[in-house]
């Protein structure tokens, strides 16, 4: 199996493959040849120079690397080419198993307007809004759904390419901006418009399908985010009424079933806590960064399941056999400086000590001496705590964070420590606006000396 990714997810995928007795070839850029996953894989091939556009994002090179190294499957991880219909189609053409959904499914959910239409057809509520065809029509639509509105790229996702429009006078300018950004980032200038929900909770449902049947593995609460980038994730979303969670899970399954979805996927919703209703945001047709919290509470190995269904095997279990055990929380440790507007920080990690112990899992590719390269995302490690209750889980994570020490690059560890001391977070009712408020209120909160250490 060719692993077309890097960092912690490359480690995660190689581990799963090893347990299944599958040999791995890591496709690595020049900058990643001397990393833990490169040493961990059975073989590493260098696919190009450091910039992702010259290496990790090259469909043809990835296929050539798989063919040339004798791999008959490609795992794309997350990011990079994980939701590239081109890669999925090229795999199908080259008789290589793409470990993910079919090319057609990737294409459909990648087109946010088509995904909206499928949600509507499956009886899944969507946020009021629709396609933008002209300025005049956008004006009418925005007036109809009510300001503020959000302009989104049809080919976008993951929070990129969004523009908030507060009042009618801003619409024309923002529309031009959104379209040109969408064209630049996704080669697709189409945008659509939705009502902007200021105070929502970001709830997402993990689904798993084998092309015939679909099961859900519960939901995750990912409301702790900044500029649409998640920082802390929990499973399950215990702050929501159980009836709402049941409705979300059922809606996600209906959506995936209508696609006859194959693989692991996530259906994202915005939950309006005040009104108690939810609406469909998008579907992510890949393994997600935060998948370990779902693995912790369900005991299902999602990467193994991905590989199995990509091989054409049935899921092997039904909804009734999925059970939930306790609560899990993940902290994303990023090499970025919260005191300097989350500026990514690069350099060499002099010392890295990660927590361990009962109920603690750390997914990382970092060790003492690892270089944090400026070419890729700033994720250094994920700390996952699992305990019988949310309260016990919070305590476990607090201590785990104290047992984590990273020296050489600035990380957001201290920010995590502060969040876990915050009564508002502890109460468990925060919305997507929480983190920005929290950071602003504690501006200058994390000078470098305050990074928790073992000493």
């Amino acid at each position: 199996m060719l692993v077309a990714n890097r960092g912690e997810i490359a480690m995660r995928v190689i581990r799963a493959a090893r347990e299944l007795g599958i040999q791995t070839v890591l496709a690595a850029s020049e900058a990643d040849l001397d990393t833990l996953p490169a040493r961990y894989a059975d073989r590493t091939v260098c696919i190009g120079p450091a910039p992702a556009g010259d290496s990790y994002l090259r469909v043809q090179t990835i296929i050539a690397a798989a063919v040339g190294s004798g791999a008959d499957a490609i795992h794309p991880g997350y990011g990079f080419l994980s939701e590239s219909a081109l890669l999925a189609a090229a795999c199908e053409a080259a008789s290589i198993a793409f470990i993910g959904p079919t090319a057609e499914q990737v294409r459909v959910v990648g087109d946010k307007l088509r995904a909206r239409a499928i949600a509507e057809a499956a009886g899944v509520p969507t946020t009021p809004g629709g396609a933008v065809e002209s300025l005049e029509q956008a004006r009418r639509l925005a007036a109809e759904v009510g300001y503020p509105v959000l302009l989104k790229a049809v080919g976008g996702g993951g929070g990129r390419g969004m523009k908030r429009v507060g009042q009618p006078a801003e619409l024309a300018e923002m529309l031009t901006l959104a379209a040109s950004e969408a064209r630049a980032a996704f080669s697709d200038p189409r945008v659509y418009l939705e009502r902007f929900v200021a105070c929502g909770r970001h709830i997402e449902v993990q689904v798993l399908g084998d092309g015939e049947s679909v099961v859900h593995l519960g939901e995750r609460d990912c409301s702790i985010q900044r500029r649409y980038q998640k920082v802390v994730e929990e499973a399950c979303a215990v702050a929501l009424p159980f009836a709402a969670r049941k409705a979300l899970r059922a809606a996600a399954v209906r959506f995936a079933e209508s696609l006859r979805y194959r693989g692991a996927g996530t259906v994202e919703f915005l939950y309006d806590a005040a009104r108690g209703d939810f609406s469909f945001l998008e579907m992510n047709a890949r393994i997600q960064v935060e998948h370990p919290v779902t693995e912790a509470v369900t005991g299902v190995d999602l990467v193994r399941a991905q590989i199995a269904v990509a091989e054409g095997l049935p899921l092997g279990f039904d909804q009734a056999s999925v059970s939930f055990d306790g609560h899990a929380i993940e902290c994303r440790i990023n090499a970025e400086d919260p005191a300097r507007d989350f500026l990514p920080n690069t350099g060499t990690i002099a010392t890295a000590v990660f927590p361990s112990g009962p109920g603690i899992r750390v997914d990382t590719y970092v060790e003492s001496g690892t270089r944090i390269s400026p070419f890729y995302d700033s994720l250094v490690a994920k700390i996952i705590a699992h305990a019988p209750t949310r309260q016990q889980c919070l305590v476990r994570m607090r201590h785990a964070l104290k047992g984590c020490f990273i020296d050489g690059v600035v990380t957001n560890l201290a920010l995590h420590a502060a969040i876990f001391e915050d009564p508002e977070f502890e109460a468990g009712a925060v919305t997507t606006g929480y983190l920005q408020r929290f950071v602003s209120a504690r501006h200058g909160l994390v000078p470098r000396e305050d990074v928790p250490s073992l000493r």
Partner: protein
Amino acid sequence: MNLNQEDVLAILALLDGSDFDELRIETADYKLHLRRSSASPLPDTPPALIAGSPAPPDSAPAPAQTVDDRELFDIKAPMLGTFYASPQPGAPPFVNVGAVVDEDTVVGIIEVMKLMNAVCAGTGGVVVEVVAQDGQLVEYGQVLVRLGRSTS
């Protein structure tokens, strides 16, 4: 009349199948000098071997070469793909050990999904070793051909 690379390769194939060891063609436009590597050099013949690349017009016969092994230069793969040492199966390789190359001389092809990318030497020199194997996967940055600087 100008010779292109394919013409030269065709002539090379003819020479290979013949009983002759050496071929010289001189016209007003070009001089072409081909020699099989197994042949021993003639005393009055410059040992330069031109293969896979048309001789530049008006080029004077190359002076006798010796290779300075202390100054080696690696031609590296500019991309990952399948390396081909010759233009098509069965054809003679673009370069052999001893070949004199300049920066535009094609030393091999890297195929990426049916797209053939010619790899040029990028610098002048004498082929000391063809490292990459025909038909094998080469990685980005892998050494394909090793050149020595020629000293006259």
